[in-house]
């Protein structure tokens, strides 16, 4: 039995190797239109990215690239759709990979396996968060904010973009490290959360730097810090998370590209190199900077390792807080 199975496995491996070596040319060519699935509604970062990259990718592979929004359920509907398509590299998922990495621990009955049913292609961009407070709070640094919370427990409320969102988990991690007592107030997405903090309904926020920066510049919010290990050119006075020794430094919106299960490695490699070329184009790189982000690229293997680590790291936070739900 054992021998037969080994033989079979060996045979399979051999066939796979044979397949790889004998058909390298056509296996990475695109034969029909490519669908790029955005698992969120129109207008978000993933959507704008897809619509920027789509036409360039189409020109590179010589096939039409159709951007399709499949919103709902933290992006799980769209991801599940891609997971169940044929593994021929013609269905792609462009998504917030930080969020997708939290799903296996947040949702008990997730209908797909992030690591098994999706094939990593590559990271696309990183955009940091801006950490800000309502200007009526008598604090202007993180140290003063910590002191304020100790003196006035229950006065601080962090508006976040939903239970289990990266913003929410980040606030939990920071509260744990510094013993903060701030409350967590979930909203339906980032924009309503910013509105709530501008109107002083809640008074602390971690939110996409691009969307938050104008409010800080105009004094409607008071900036405290930015995530990542660089200061923002637009807000050079704000310290970054590395300077503040925050428990997580490179936290923010990470956008990446994945494909359906079974996509051949040659195809993944081809897509990875095309995306890298597109992201190096000045007009695309400039738009990404205008979107408040920076281009980040890697290999499919590095990207896969990044996702694996994010699943473990965020999973630990979710488990410690008992945030898992049945859906």
């Amino acid at each position, binding site marked *: 039995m054992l021998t037969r199975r080994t033989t079979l496995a060996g045979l399979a491996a051999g066939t796979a190797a044979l397949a790889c070596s004998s058909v390298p040319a056509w296996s990475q060519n695109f034969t029909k239109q490519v669908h790029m699935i955005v698992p969120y*509604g*129109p*207008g978000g970062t993933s*959507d*704008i990215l897809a*619509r*920027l990259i789509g*036409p360039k990718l189409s020109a590179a592979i010589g096939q039409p690239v159709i951007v*399709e*929004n*499949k*919103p*709902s*359920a*933290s992006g*799980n*509907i769209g991801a*599940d759709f891609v997971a169940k398509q044929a593994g021929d590299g013609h269905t792609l998922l462009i998504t917030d990979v930080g969020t997708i990495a939290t799903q296996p621990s*947040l949702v008990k*009955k997730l*209908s797909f396996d992030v690591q098994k049913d999706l094939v990593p292609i590559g990271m696309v961009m990183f955009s940091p968060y801006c950490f800000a407070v309502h200007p009526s709070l008598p604090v202007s640094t993180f140290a003063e904010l910590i002191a304020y919370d100790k003196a006035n427990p*229950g006065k601080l*409320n962090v508006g976040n973009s*939903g*239970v*289990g969102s990266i913003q929410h988990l980040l606030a939990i991690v920071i509260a744990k490290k510094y013993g903060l007592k701030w*409350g967590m*107030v*979930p*909203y*339906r997405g980032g*924009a*309503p959360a*910013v*509105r*709530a903090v*501008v*109107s*002083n*309904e*809640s008074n602390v926020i971690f939110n996409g730097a*691009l*969307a938050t*920066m*104008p*409010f800080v*510049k*105009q004094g*409607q919010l008071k900036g405290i810090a930015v995530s990542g290990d660089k200061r923002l050119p637009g807000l050079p006075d704000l310290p970054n998370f590395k300077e503040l020794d925050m428990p997580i430094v490179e936290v923010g919106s990470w956008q990446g590209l994945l494909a359906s299960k079974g996509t051949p490695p040659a195809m993944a490699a081809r897509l990875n190199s095309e995306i890298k070329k597109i992201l190096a184009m000045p007009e695309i790189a400039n*738009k990404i900077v*205008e*979107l408040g982000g920076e281009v980040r690229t890697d290999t499919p293997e590095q990207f896969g390792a990044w996702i694996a680590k994010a699943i473990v790291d965020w999973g630990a936070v979710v488990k410690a807080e008992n*945030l898992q*739900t*049945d*859906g």
Partner: protein
Amino acid sequence: MDLIANLATGFGVALTPANLGFCLLGALIGTLVGVLPGIAPITTIAILLPFTFSLPPTSSLIMLAGIFYGAQYGGSTTAILVNVPGESSAIVTCLDGHQMAKQGRAGPALAIAAIASFVAGTIATLVIATASVPMSWLALKFNAAEYFSLMVLGLTGAVVLAAGAPEKAVAMVLVGLLLGLVGIDVNTGTPRMTMDIAELGDGIGFVPIAIGLFGIAELAVTLGRPRDHSLLSFKLSNLWPSWAEIRQCIPAMLRGTVLGSVLGVLPGGGAALSSFAAYALEKKWSRHPERFGRGAIEGVAAPEAANNAGAQTSFIPLLTLGIPGNAIMALMVGAMMIQGVQPGPQVMTAQPQLFWGVIASMWLGNLMLIVLNLPMIGLWVSLLRVPYRLMFPAIVLFCCIGTYSVGNTVFDIWAMLLFGVLGVFFYKVGAEPAPFILGFILGPLMEENFRRAMYLSRGDPLVFIERPISAVLLLMSLALLVILVLPAVKKKREEVFQE
């Protein structure tokens, strides 16, 4: 005199041939999107967004804004003709607008909808030009407690919407409220009543419900009356409303405009109320409330005015505070930022050309829309002559396409058909879908804000009466409730005395 100088700047920008062209293009696309049920302006704007990258910021905003308010115009057309509301605002237009169409008065209904929208659009443009800064504080004064109280007032008012028995209306509000709770609870992240169906995670979609309950159900009910051979069961009367009718509608339009302008400024949920509120107000105000729901022309004018005014004043928080009030405005923020324009208070001073140009274009866009729409009325009405066997499959097809396009999922089409069946059931038992829809929209908002307000006050319920705006809104709900209950009480007593 600043105002005149500013408006002159604005019209100088908006009247350039290129910007006029983009305004027209936006208004045209918007009308088309509004007429096709389900296809939402937000999807259209998102798809067109990349094409605007290469345009100057003012032109791109003019076009995108045109799509938005153009869709408000177009949405009423299908609501009146075939009882298919494309957006929440058009639901109220169905109530009397479609009744008018059934009586052969589709022309006057369409005309009054266009005229009311234009009047409201003109006034709302003036409001934005003169009062956007003072009105923007309203957007900041509304916190969780105020939203809760506003929703209480809205739901109390929902009962007024019903043409029939108030008991049935209350029941329908409650059923709508329950269905509105389906989905992941915002405050805890717990899925409720989703039966492990991932598609229900974000709740039941609004578009499938509205199209199913109104459009599909209406078709099915009409099929049950085999004597008609086209949607037009009555002889066509005039294509245009009489002067007497227009005069009769003017106060209704003005009241609707005021209500819509104020509610439109409130981010999130405020605008959804405006057309419902305007309709309820007219019905209460009228000396003949029994005409409502049976083809009252004010029942079309008031909500159309309110919804158009609200659509326009929803730009106020965006332009003055940088706060997007709804998903479409959030998209506009994206469009502005990609163009290198930081939305916020400084737009008005730093980029007066853009600010006043967009405002001036709104009025021009409204003018174009009425010029475009009035001559189209004859064409739309003649569509009603198309026999059933051709018209019905076409409507069902468009409903399916529109519903599918919202989330690109077949699930929504099944949901739409299911709600069509439910709509027929509601019709048979004489229960009206409008209070149901209002419960469905407002219920979850009310719950979300109630729990948020309670959390922020750390469990102190007094927060709802300590905050003045919230207290006033609650008092108004109480007053409305008394007005609603009193006649019933009086009647009962009379009955008792007669015995």
